[in-house]
């Protein structure tokens, strides 16, 4: 019998979502998920990044009960999603990627429908608060077909929040949403997180993950290739660039500077040095000394950290 290690046991205790060896192969033979393991901590905002077709939506759909897993186990707050589906699903709210709404229902009716569907009695005050938070209150009597795409997206969020979930999945929630609406949404998301709701977000807007997430997971070709605290991830994988803007342009990099592997940019007016922040020595001091010795003068300098997007692109492009 396998006994969980103390560390593993503690990790599961603090996890609200625990996924182990989850695989999914569709009837077509396409393997969407390959033995995925993931622990989501209570109260965190976890950003799941990955290119199209990486398995993000399949993963979320299995957890929510829309897709059947081929193998593996998922528990939500300790409840198995198959054997204890009622307890597990009651805790989950899902904002799907597709804008799927009933055309003829009113906003008020559809949000109340969702609350009932998840086994909760009427609570007009709560529904009113949710609609007001999402700037939908003045649209409450409008039929859904009369709403814009952005408004429909808000309705989907309101529906997902109507039963007060403890674990909220936002599957590309800001796709096709204008900047103002997007900011409103993130305000709501932050407020939810403050009340202890755990949020799992997939997005194509990586700057959103960079702004909001506590941890970042990267999925590619059905495999989780990285899960890391966002700040640590950027610290570990982030490369920095030092750009020296030269006082006078140079035609080529002098041989004396060859060991620093510089790039000459802007028509010979800038030298770019890429270094690793993880290294004990960045080599900047030696570089500046060598530049001075080579008689090259510079009028300005700046450094730039890799963005999460650049890190993400590097990761999914790397051969597996």
């Amino acid at each position: 019998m396998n006994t969980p290690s103390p560390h593993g046991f503690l990790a599961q205790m603090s996890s609200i979502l625990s996924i182990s060896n989850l695989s999914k192969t569709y009837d077509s033979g396409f393997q969407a998920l390959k033995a995925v393991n993931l622990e989501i901590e209570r109260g965190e905002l976890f950003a799941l990044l990955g290119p199209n077709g990486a398995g993000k939506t399949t993963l979320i759909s299995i957890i929510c009960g829309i897709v059947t897993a081929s193998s593996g186990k998922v528990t939500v707050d300790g409840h198995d999603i198959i054997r204890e589906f009622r307890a597990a699903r009651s805790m989950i709210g899902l904002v799907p990627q597709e804008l799927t709404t009933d055309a003829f229902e009113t906003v008020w009716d559809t949000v109340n429908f969702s609350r009932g569907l998840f086994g909760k009695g009427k609570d007009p005050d709560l529904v009113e608060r949710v609609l007001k938070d999402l700037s939908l209150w003045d649209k409450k009597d409008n039929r859904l077909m009369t709403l814009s795409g952005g408004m429909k997206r808000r309705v989907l969020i309101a529906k997902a929040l109507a039963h007060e979930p403890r674990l909220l999945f936002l599957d590309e929630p800001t796709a096709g949403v204008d900047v103002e609406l997007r900011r409103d949404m993130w305000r709501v998301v932050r407020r939810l997180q403050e009340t202890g709701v755990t949020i799992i977000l997939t997005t194509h807007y990586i700057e959103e993950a960079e702004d909001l997430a506590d941890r970042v997971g990267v999925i590619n070709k059905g495999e989780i290739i990285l899960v890391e605290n966002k700040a640590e991830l950027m610290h570990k994988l982030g490369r920095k660039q030092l750009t020296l803007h030269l006082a006078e342009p140079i035609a080529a990099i002098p041989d004396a500077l060859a060991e620093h592997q510089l790039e000459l940019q802007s028509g010979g007016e800038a030298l770019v040095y890429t270094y690793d922040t993880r290294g004990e020595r960045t080599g900047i001091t030696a570089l500046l000394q060598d530049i001075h010795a080579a008689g090259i003068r510079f009028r300005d300098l700046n450094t730039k950290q890799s963005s999460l997007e650049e890190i993400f692109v590097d990761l999914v492009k790397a051969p597996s």
Partner: protein
Amino acid sequence: MNLYAINAIYRFEMARTGRTLFQSIISPVISTSLYFVVFGAAIGSRISEVDGVSYGAFIVPGLIMLSLLTQSLSNASFGIYFPRFTGTIYEVLSAPVSYLEIVIAYVGAAATKSIIVGLIILATAGLFVPLEIQHPGWMLLFLVLTSVTFALFGFIIGIWAGNFEQLQLVPLLIVTPLAFLGGSFYSISMLPPAWQTVTLFNPVVYLISGFRWSFYGMADVGVGVSLAMTLLFLAICIAIIAWIFKTGYRLKS
């Protein structure tokens, strides 16, 4: 049991009836009234009584049954097909709702609508012909059993259908002909012996016969056989739905 969820789906489906009142309730009443005018008053006046019942009164159970079958089927099939078509089915599938609760809610709403239509048609028929119901309890039993059974059948079609054409296929090409050939407008004893035997393979014969017996105490087949056949069809539909949910057929990938 998640009664809130059953209530939510049931009310959602019934609200759809309210929005489409003309299509759901008034339209079948008008078309049935036309049957009475044409078959009952115009043609029926030239047809002698059938087993001691005026022709106009004779066709009432068959007409109600014809509407029950088509209404139960179309209401239930549309009710589950439309969320599949629009994608909103995701919410039902991801909710803490058991398969039994989903079926109770959708089938219950579809059956309720068709029972309402059946009772309205019965009341409408009372305006055209003198009605007697010898066994009202049996009449209600057949009304409810038939509505539920065909709503279950419609639910199956709604899950099976890949497009709107397929959704219409079974009601148009199978159920309506079976209802017309199942004795809605005649007693099967009026047919030549060979055709009487063939007709017994039509399941709708048993529904109409049992229903007509509850009105006038006369039947093409024994009421016990009618009830047994109805329950058999009900059991077959339940078994298919159980299989659908067990396998996730056309619902889950």
